[in-house]
């Protein structure tokens, strides 16, 4: 099983591709990734799992993160600002 990698897109912007993962791993992996990032960083989480698209924003907003969700081509891009 391959570990989903946190990829740097540009200065302060990162993506985490958790496509193919079922709950709760998109949520857990998003939280672990955010712990590694500096204040002000942007993390884009990409998922194709509808329950995760529902749950990850709920979980992160509860923790005080700003979250926006965009859907395109059957995938959700959950953009989180730390």
């Amino acid at each position, binding site marked *: 099983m391959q570990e989903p990698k946190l990829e740097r897109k540009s200065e302060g912007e990162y993506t985490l591709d958790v496509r*193919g993962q079922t*709950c709760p791993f998109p949520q*857990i992996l998003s939280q*672990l990734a955010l712990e590694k990032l500096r204040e002000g960083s942007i993390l884009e989480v990409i998922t194709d799992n509808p329950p995760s698209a529902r*749950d990850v924003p709920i979980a992160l907003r509860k923790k005080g993160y700003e979250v926006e969700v965009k859907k395109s081509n059957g995938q959700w891009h959950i953009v989180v600002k730390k």
Partner: protein
Amino acid sequence: MEKVMRFMGRYSLGRDNGMGSLHFLRIKIPGGVITSEYFKGIAELSREYGRGYAEITDRQDIQLHWIEGDDALDIFERLEKMGFTTDMCGQAFPGAGHGDVRNIVGCPLSGVNKDELIDGYPVIKELTRFFTGNEDFLDLPKKFKFSISGCMYNCTRAEINDMAFIPVVHDGEIGFTVLAGGGAGKTLPGPTLAKPLRVFLSQEEVFDVAVATVEIFRDHGNRESKAKARFKYLLDQIGVNGLRNMIEKKLGRKLEDYHGDVSREWIEHTGVGEQKDERYYVCVPLIGGKLSSDIMEWYAGLAEEYGTGDLRLTTFQNLIIVNVEDKEGLLKELGKEGVVLKGIIPKWTAVGCASDFCGKTKEYHSKEIVRDIVEHLETSYPNIFVNQDFKIGVSGCPNNCGYSVIASVGLEGRLIRVNGSVKQGYDIYLRGKLENGSIGRRVAEGVPAENVVNVLNKLLEQYKIKLKNESEIRFVDFLEKLSDTEIKKLVEVT
């Protein structure tokens, strides 16, 4: 991260959509076999994380609700220590794929059953170990369901599994024959009873045939759409002979023919029964499989005091304490808490799905209807159904997790419009059966939920009238003989 990676592929949370729950945890209990120590361990998990509630499913799992994603790693770690894993819940993905092998069901009395030809549990354990976390089998077109039972009775609903191994004697040798391509849900080609593969297998051959079949499903199953992704669709395309040829090619040998009878009586191991070692089993009827953490600990304690601490879960959502010597003592203890092991058989055999948590029913959910039907039968017909059974299956939707389409009386949830408002209704199916099986026929659509027990009562009242002239006729036979006109009149809601 290492801990997270360790759990991937073996643990998951499923999506809930009702009762304020976002996630369920479906713990696989292979063959329904569990010790009191682990039953208590799961009771603790339900208390700490699941609001003190648990339910036994009709695939012998234990399911908890209200699980938070933040607690998942702790829960998985504790399950790992007990040796349990979960379903992978890939069904939420929009397309075909992410399917896994689900909890393998078996006779809940395996190893102690007086009516057992062969113990199917060892191969259940072997296959569970093989498939769990195996990356080669985590992206099937859809889920795959096995039944492996050595019981002379059909206590696992074999015909509704993708593949079922049932015990037979062939030329003096005890082994298994195989049924393939069953499924109760509405995905193509619709509700289907598994067909005989007409092969005889020794116990040692079961593992290879099971693995070969899942490989065939993985490599040849349809991935165009979810509607075509179940194994029954593939079998519909290739036929049983086609499947057999593909299995034999994989194994590199021909399988032995078997043309004997495959039909067995569909039962639950109800009440108190004698085991082959002259000890007893005690089957507790749980309506809808519902338990609290306190009750789970109580039953675990009773299993330790009166048995050997061994418990079994059944496909009718009931709980069995095995290896009991002092059955009278146990019955007395159960009686103190109002658990009575006498009465109508449907109290053990009626099944309802978790439609309340799925969010598929608006109100008057499947398990509530099961409870009310059983109560009505106990109150109004207490003597008639003590010695005869009829299967009641209540599902919240066409996925048919409550097996409505194979029940004698089946209910399938559907939302209806009444005076401009959306309300809960149920379609009614009659005459489903597994012995010389047939899928039930829908006789009424969209009956308002509050009328369902009345409709059933009209059928029962007519049956009571019939009994005056034909005292031996069973309710299931009465249903078979009703004409379409008679049925229409009886199920009409005014």
